Every structure is written in structure tokens, then in C-alpha cells.
């Protein structure tokens, strides 16, 4: 079934209709979330009570908009902070991993490569609890042995960052490796012949070549961190990232405020994705 092989008209029509239906299915929940952000009512459901911006800018009860809701704003800040940390760490380690697997042949390489892929096939919630268990083992051990209370090893933002970093790094490693593999090593050798030392060659030739992959990996890492729920849920302390705050709100019952936050998230991540695509094109 390819364009060069003729097909009955009916088959083609049904196929096209199926694909159209699929995209309708994909778009429907998001469209609904976006539209009800503007409903002038306490509930994100029909009947439609008219158009309002209050769920974004409203500053008095019962309609407090996103930009006046302290706890939502604070958790957006928390999520952004966690995302930046995770992106920075995982791109740094991912780059080191990519160079290691690309440039060195050593014993145990293939075992390490499989281990590196492993976080992809461990359920997020299991990653979360294993890190929770281990960090409290260490913290309790420190407390029993030396009487030191290691606050950072208790559930909180540090653990959230570590938990997300533990699986995002696999993704960044794969993204950066893919580009490094296509790199023409003779360019680096040319730099060495021209008198550059190894680090200078990597800094001035290889890293600029890798830049699109580094930025791409960073954006993907940031988004994955921002969206993550499972691992974060097990490791979160008192400062909740946005997904956790929204989850708690949603359990209490939803107002169009959540739609407004969701719409902002959609716009934000689409913009980031566009930036990323623009960088890949260059």
C-alpha cells in the first residue's frame, strides 16, 4: 500500500478517515483543557458561562488567576529550578558518557553500555523508592555512627533532582552519542596537526559541532524533568514541584485555574520545542 500501487477509492477514503480520526483523538483532550481555561465558571465543564481572562489574571476570590496564586507560582519556580539542575547535570554526564563510549575501547565496555541503558526499563516509581531507601539508609547510618543529621538525604529537592537525573542521563547520553558518532575525527586530527593540544581541539572543533545535540539534550532533559511525576512523587519533600501541586489540587476537585496552568504549560513547552527545532536546523 504505497502511492505507486493503485488502491480502490473506498480503501483510500477509509484509511484517510482513520488517520484523521486518530489526530482528532490526539488533539481532543488538549483542546478541551485549553478551551475551558477561559470558562467564566467554577468548574471546567459545560455549560459554557462566557469568556473570561480571570483564571489567568483574576486577583479576588472566587476567581484567583494563575498569576496571583502564590502556591502555583512557587511550584512553577521549584519545577524550573529542578529542571535546570537536572538538565545541566545530565548534559554534563551525558557528554562524558558519549565521549567515553565513542573514543575508548576497554574491557567491560559492552556491559557498561547495557547498564547505561538500564534506567530506561526500570519503572520510574521503582527508581524513586530505591533511591529513597538508599538515601535514608545512608542518612540513618550517619546519624547512628557520627550523630550527623544529613538533611539533604531526606526527601526533598536534592533527592528529586538526583532521582530525575538518574534516568534522564540515559536519554542525554543517547542523544549526544548519536551526533558524536557522525563526527569526522579527521577534523580533530587536523587541529592537532596545526598545533592545538587535545583539549583545545575538543573545545574549538568537537564541542561546537556537538552544540545542537547538547542544546537539544538539555531541552529534552528540562522538559522530562518538568513533566516527571512518578519518580518525583516518591522523593518529594515539603517544596512541591508543579506536577505534584497540580495533582494535589486535582484530587481536591478541579477549577479552571488548573486549565489555565495547563494551557501555560502547553504554550511554554511548545515554545521550547520550537527553539530546539530551530537550533537543530542550523
Amino acid at each position, binding site marked *: *500500500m504505497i502511492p505507486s*500501487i493503485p488502491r480502490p477509492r473506498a480503501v483510500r477514503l477509509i484509511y484517510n478517515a482513520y488517520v484523521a480520526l486518530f489526530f482528532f483523538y490526539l488533539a481532543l*483532550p488538549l483542546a478541551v483543557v485549553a478551551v475551558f481555561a477561559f470558562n467564566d465558571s467554577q468548574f471546567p*465543564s*459545560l455549560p459554557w458561562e462566557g469568556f473570561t481572562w480571570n483564571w489567568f489574571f483574576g486577583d479576588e476570590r472566587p476567581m484567583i488567576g494563575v498569576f496571583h496564586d502564590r502556591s502555583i507560582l512557587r511550584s512553577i519556580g521549584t519545577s524550573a529550578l529542578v529542571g535546570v539542575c537536572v538538565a545541566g547535570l545530565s548534559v554534563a554526564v551525558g557528554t562524558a558518557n558519549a565521549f567515553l563510549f565513542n573514543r575508548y575501547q576497554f574491557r567491560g565496555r559492552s556491559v557498561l553500555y547495557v547498564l547505561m541503558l538500564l534506567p530506561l526499563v526500570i519503572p520510574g*516509581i*521503582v527508581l524513586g523508592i530505591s533511591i529513597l531507601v538508599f538515601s535514608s539508609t545512608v542518612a540513618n547510618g550517619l546519624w547512628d555512627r557520627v550523630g550527623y543529621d544529613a538533611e539533604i538525604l531526606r526527601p526533598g529537592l536534592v533527592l528529586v533532582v538526583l532521582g530525575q537525573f538518574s534516568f534522564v542521563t540515559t536519554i542525554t547520553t543517547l542523544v549526544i552519542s548519536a551526533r558524536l558518532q557522525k563526527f569526522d575525527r579527521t577534523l580533530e586530527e587536523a587541529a592537532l596537526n596545526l598545533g592545538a593540544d587535545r583539549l583545545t581541539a575538543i573545545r574549538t572543533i568537537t564541542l561546537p559541532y556537538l552544540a545542537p545535540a547538547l542544546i537539544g539534550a538539555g531541552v529534552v532533559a528540562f522538559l522530562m524533568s518538568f513533566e516527571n511525576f512518578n519518580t518525583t512523587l516518591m522523593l518529594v519533600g515539603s517544596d512541591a514541584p508543579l506536577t505534584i501541586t497540580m495533582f494535589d489540587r486535582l484530587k481536591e476537585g478541579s477549577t479552571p485555574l488548573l486549565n489555565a496552568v495547563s494551557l501555560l504549560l502547553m504554550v511554554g513547552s511548545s515554545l521550547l*520545542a520550537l527553539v530546539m527545532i530551530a537550533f537543530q536546523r542550523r
Partner: protein
Amino acid sequence: MAQGTKLGFYLLLTPLVLWLGLLIIIPHIDMALLSLRERVGVGEYATSLANYRGFFGEPIYMWTFLRTAMMSMLATVVTLIIAFPVSYYIAKIAKGRVQSVLFLLCLVPFWVSELVRTFGWMILLRETGLFSSLLQWTGLADGPVEMLYNDVAMMVGLVYTSMLFMVVPLVTMLESLDDAVIEAGYDLGGSGASVLREIVIPHAMPGIVSGSIVVFMLSLGNYLTPTMLGGKDSLWFTELIYSQFIVRFNWELGAAFGFMLLILSSLIVWVTLRLTGQTLEKTMGS
């Protein structure tokens, strides 16, 4: 290796070893040890299989475990069946601009949080939701219809949430299939079905396997969708883990549950790879 590159090698190796050692391997060993621990008194512990006995001895735990596995497999199969024709369309029928636009459209829902997607389905399916209103408006239903909090709603959510992870590997694999090979299949007298069975599907196999593994993993480990869309009877195994850890504070039993989930997922991934003759490096590394 020269002296300089040897130093470089160890410098590059260190972060990898620290990452895998401190965040993946040792925590999982620690979790396994914890799951083998039994509280025998205040602050006193003994090594035993009590937690696993508790798991196998309690029908509700076993039942939830098996149900989660079966439902995740079902979600994987449904996702594959829905995604395959669409991926084929994107890879082989759509051309040029349309192709890249359709592909990008597939990615869009996954740039937003799973929470937002689940929330969208709640707005659609609940008693006061859009579908219910639509049914009443058309006269197909007399009163509000509750479509949320059951297995079907949960399945819709699971399939929706993991669709991307099936479409992307499938499109990638199908795109690499040369049109001429399909034409040759027809020239040799193959019908649509036999070309699909003997040419297209075998070629797409690595994509099917990696997509299925990821979708299965995501469904199995999902917490949000079963909690928000599933009903009282659609308990998910991750909810048991969560309640043991956070609500009941019985970490030993929770660790045993976590380990069971890990074993189940590894086993199924391993069997799938074996049956289809693929390797983890090939399916995940590309």
C-alpha cells in the same frame, strides 16, 4: 593508551560509574536487602522472606499484580494496533511537508505533562463532562452518564499517554523500508495482506519491539492514570507500592512490592527480546 589519554579515560569513566553505582545499582541492592528484612521487635530486625510470603499469601496483592501485568499488556497491544496504520501512513503515504507536519503533530501532546493529558480525559469523560453533555443533548441519554472511574476509561488514558513511544520507533523503521521492496512484493504476485505480513512487518520488527517494550514499561509503572481515571476496582500495583511507602510507612513490604514489579518488568522485557531475537542495545540504543 598513552599517559594523557589514560587520565582522560578515567576522568570520563568516573561520572558514569558514580551515576550508575550510586543512583542505580547500590540503591537497588539496598532495596532488595530491605525487602528481605523483617521487623521482629522494636528496632530489631531479622533476615527472612516474610515480606514475600506476605505478598504471595494475600490474594489482593497477587490479584492486583497479575491484573496490572495483563492490563499493561493489553494496553501495549491496543497501542500497537492503533499506532501501526498511522505510522505507516506517516512513513509511506504522506510526502514532504505533510509528512513532517503529521509527525510533529504526533509529538505535540507529549510536550505537555501527563497530568494535563489525564486532566483532559477527566473533563471529557466525567459525569458533568463533555461526552455526557453531548449524549444528553442528542437525546441518546436521559440523565448524566458517568464514564470515568472504570477500566475502559483507564485504558483510554494509558493508550493515549504512551502513543508517542509507539509511533516514533515505528515511523523510523518504516521510513527506512525502500518503496521498491514493497513494489517488488506486489510484482511477484503478493497481495496487500501477504506483502504486509512478509515484508512490512518483518522489516518494522525492531521498531515494534522497542515501541512495545517502552509502552509496556510506561503502563506498568504508571501511577497517575490508574489513580485519576480508574475506579475503585481498577487498583494498580504502583498504588500498592505508594500506599505501603507513604501511607502505611511499611517500607519493608513496599520494597518487596517494588522488587516484584522490577522482576516482572525485566522478565517480560527479556522474554520479548528473546522471542523476537532482538537485543537491548539494538532496540533502545538507536
